[in-house]
C-alpha cells in the first residue's frame, strides 16, 4: 500500500482556500445587489446580467482557443470571468442595449484581461476597462438612466424623456453636478438620502441600492475574502473630501452621506477597488491606493466635469499600483540585513 509514494516540497497540506472559492464569495456578495436590480428594473436586469456574464465567459473561452491553450475550458473554472461580467452589468445603465453589453463585456475580458496574460496579470480592473470602453464609444447610451419600475418620478425638475420605451431620469449625482453649477438646490438632492439607501433612484443597474451593496460587502469582510483596509481607506477619504465641500457651502455641495450612497461608490468600495489583482499587496500600499481612489472620485464629482468619477479613479489608481507596490516595500521582521 506504499508502492506509489509521491514526493514534493513541503508543506504537504493546504488550507481551505481556493481561487474559485474567493471568486464564488464575490458572486455571493454581489447577490443582494443583483436581487435589488431585479426588483427595481425587473426582468431586464436579469437578462442584462446574464448577457454580460455569458459573453464574458464565451470571450474568455475564445481567447483561450485563439491562444492555443491546451485546455481552453480550464481557466473558466476559476469563475473570474463571471465576476467581471456581473460587475460590468451592475455598473451600466439598465437601459443599455444588449448588443452594447456584449461589446463591453467582450472588451473587458479580451482587452482588459486576456491580452495581458489572463487572470492575475491584468493591470486594469477588467470590468472598469469594459465600462470605460462603453463610455468612450456610446456616451449617450451610457448616460441614459431608466427609472426604477417601482416609482413614479419624484423629483420636480426632471426632464423626462419618453421617446424610448424606458422612462429616463437623471441620477442624484447629475443633480448634484447641477447644484454645484447653479450653487443652489443641493438640499433637494440631500432629501433623497433614503432613496439612495434603498435604491429607488435612477442610476446604474446595481449601484442604486446602497443597502444591498453594504450587505454584500459585510459578507465579504466576514468571510475574509477582502480585508478592511481598502474599503476603509476609500470611504474615509471620500467622506472627508465630501464633508469639506458640504461644510464650505451646503447649498452647492450635497451631503457626504448622499455622496457615499449614490453612484458607484459602494460598489467600488467593496467590489471593485478590492479586486486583489489590480490593488497593491501591502497594507500601506492599500491605504495609499484607497485614499487615491476615494480622493480622485470626489475630485471628479465635485471639481471635475463628470457627475461620476469612480471608474476613472479606479483606472488611474490601477495604473499606479505597480509603483505603489514598489514604493511600499516591506521591511522584514528582523530588520534589513547588513549586507
Amino acid at each position: 500500500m506504499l508502492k506509489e509514494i509521491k514526493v514534493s516540497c513541503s508543506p504537504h497540506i493546504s488550507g481551505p482556500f481556493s481561487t474559485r472559492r474567493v471568486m464564488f464569495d464575490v458572486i455571493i456578495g454581489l447577490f443582494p445587489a443583483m436581487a435589488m436590480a431585479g426588483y427595481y428594473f425587473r426582468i431586464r436586469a436579469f437578462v442584462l446580467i446574464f448577457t454580460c456574464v455569458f459573453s464574458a465567459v464565451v470571450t474568455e473561452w475564445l481567447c483561450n482557443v485563439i491562444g492555443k491553450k491546451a485546455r481552453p475550458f480550464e481557466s473558466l473554472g476559476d469563475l473570474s470571468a463571471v465576476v467581471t461580467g456581473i460587475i460590468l452589468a451592475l455598473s451600466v445603465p439598465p437601459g443599455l442595449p444588449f448588443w452594447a453589453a456584449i461589446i463591453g463585456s467582450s472588451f473587458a475580458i479580451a482587452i482588459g484581461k486576456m491580452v495581458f496574460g489572463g487572470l492575475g496579470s491584468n493591470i486594469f480592473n477588467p470590468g472598469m476597462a469594459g465600462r470605460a470602453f462603453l463610455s468612450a464609444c456610446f456616451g449617450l447610451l451610457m448616460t441614459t438612466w431608466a427609472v426604477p419600475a417601482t416609482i413614479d418620478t419624484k423629483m420636480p425638475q426632471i426632464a423626462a424623456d419618453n421617446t424610448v420605451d424606458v422612462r429616463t431620469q437623471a441620477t442624484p449625482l447629475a443633480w448634484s453636478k447641477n447644484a454645484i453649477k447653479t450653487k443652489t438646490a443641493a438640499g433637494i438632492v440631500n432629501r433623497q438620502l433614503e432613496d439612495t439607501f434603498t435604491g429607488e433612484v435612477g442610476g446604474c443597474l446595481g449601484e442604486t441600492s446602497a443597502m444591498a451593496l453594504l450587505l454584500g460587502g459585510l459578507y465579504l469582510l466576514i468571510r475574509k475574502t477582502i480585508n478592511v483596509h481598502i474599503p476603509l481607506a476609500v470611504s474615509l477619504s471620500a467622506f472627508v473630501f465630501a464633508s469639506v465641500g458640504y461644510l464650505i457651502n451646503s447649498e452647492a455641495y450635497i451631503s457626504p452621506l448622499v455622496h457615499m450612497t449614490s453612484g458607484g461608490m459602494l460598489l467600488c468600495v467593496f467590489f471593485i477597488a478590492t479586486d486583489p489583482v489590480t490593488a497593491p499587496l501591502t497594507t500601506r500600499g492599500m491605504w495609499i491606493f484607497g485614499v487615491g481612489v476615494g480622493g480622485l472620485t470626489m475630485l471628479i464629482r465635485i471639481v471635475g466635469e463628470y457627475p461620476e468619477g469612480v471608474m476613472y479613479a479606479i483606472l488611474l489608481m490601477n495604473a499606479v499600483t505597480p509603483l505603489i507596490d514598489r514604493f511600499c516595500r516591506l521591511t522584514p521582521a528582523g530588520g534589513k540585513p547588513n549586507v
Partner: protein
Amino acid sequence: MKLDTKGRLTFPGGVHPPTGKKLAREIEIQDGPSVKQVSIMLSQHIGAACLPLVKKGDIVQAGEKIGDADAFVCAPVHTPVRGKVKEISLQSHAVLGRSPAVVIEAEADNPTRAPQSELEGDFDINKYSVEDICTAVREAGLVGMGGAGFPTRVKIEPNPRLPKETMIINGCECEPCITCDYRIMLEWPKKIIAGIKLAKKASGCSRVIIGIEDNKPEAMEAMSAALNDLANGNNIKIVPVKTKYPQGGERQLIRAILKKNVPTGGIPPMIGVVVLNVATCAAIAEAVVNGSSLTHRVVTVTGNTIAKPGNYYSAIGTSIKELIEFSGGVTKKSAKVVLGGPMMGIAVADLAMPITKTSGAITVLTKEDIGRAKFARRQTACIRCGRCLEVCPEGLNPTKIAHAVKYGFLDVAESYYINGCIECGCCSYVCPANIEVTGYIKTGKIFLARQKKKMPE
C-alpha cells in the same frame, strides 16, 4: 496555585492548520523496533560532516563513537547497537541526497538499551563543572533535536564575544501531527529540568523561560511539578504561548516571549538568547548524568492510515520502512511518507532512508490529507490576494520572491530578502491558487547559494 495555561504571547502572522495530534498524543513512549541493521549517517547536523573512525569488518560496542571530525561546528556520531561494520556506503539522506553512512549489522543477542526512563534519585548540579558539561555534551554528539540539528555544545558553551543572558526552552511543538516532545514533557519532565539546569550553568544564562503552546496544559502541569521538585528559585519559569504555527520556530518564539527580533539572517546569540528544544534538554541530562551518547530518540509515527500510531524510542539509523512496519504498517492506500510533520517535513522517496538525530516524526499522508487540488498539483495564477504577506511570520513578501525566482530574477528575489525566509510553509498553506510559494523560495535560496559558490552544483 492553579497554573495559568492561557497563552497570550504570540508573534504576528502564522496559520492554524489542523493539528492532527490526537492520533498519537495519548500514547505512551514505547520501545522502538529491535533492528538487525542500522545506517548511521555521518552528517546529521549543521556543520562539518564526520569522518568514519571505524572500517569495514570492525566490531563495535553499543554507544561507541564511530564518526567524528576536528571542526568546531560538528557533533560526533555513535552506534546504537553492538555489531559488525558491514560497509561504509552512500545512503539516502533527507536533505543531502546520497550521503556517506556507516552500516552496522547488529548481533543477534544485542542487549537492547534499557527502556528509557525518567531521571531517578536526586540531582545535584554542583557535581558538574562547566567544562564537564560541555565536554559531555560534545562527546555525546548532541544536536538540536527539534529539526535544525545545530551542535548543542556550540550553542551552550560560554562565548565571550556573544554573552548569553536568556535561555528559551522550546516546548511548543507547533508542527501538526508530531507528539514526541509532548510525550517527553509528560513522561520525563525531571530529565528536562535537569538538562535545563545543566545548560543554564554551562551557558551562564541568568534566566530560563520555557515556552509551551497553550493546547498542552497537561505538559505545562507536569513540567511545573518537576520544576518545583528540582529547581525552585533558579529563575526558571514556564510561559504559555498561543497555539499557532510556526510558534515553535526559534525566531517566532523569541519574538513572542521576549518581544525582541533576531536580526534577519542572524542567529539568537546576537541578541543574547539561546534556544533549546525540550528533547535536547532531556538528552543533555542523559549525556551528563548517565554518560550516554545520543543513539536513540523518540520518533512519532503517525498518520490516518497507520495501524498503531505511537511514539517510539528508536535507535537512530533505523530505516523508515522498519518503523512503519513496527507501527503495524499502513491500512489503506497512502500517498506520501513525510519525514517530519506535514508543514515542514520532507517527503521521502526511499523508505530505506535511516532516521537521524533530528527526525522527530514519520507522517504518512493520504490523498485526502493532502487535499485534492494540491495532490493533483492544480495551480491557478497568482491573484495577488496578499494572504501570504499576511501570514508570513518574518514579514516578507513571499509572492514577489517566489515569482522572481520563477522567472529567474535572483537579484530581485534577494532584494526582497529571500534569505530571511524560514521556510515554514505558511505562504503555500494559505495560497488559494495552490502555488508552491515555499518551494520556489527554497529553490531560489539554493540557486543563490550556488551563484555565490557557497554550495556545490
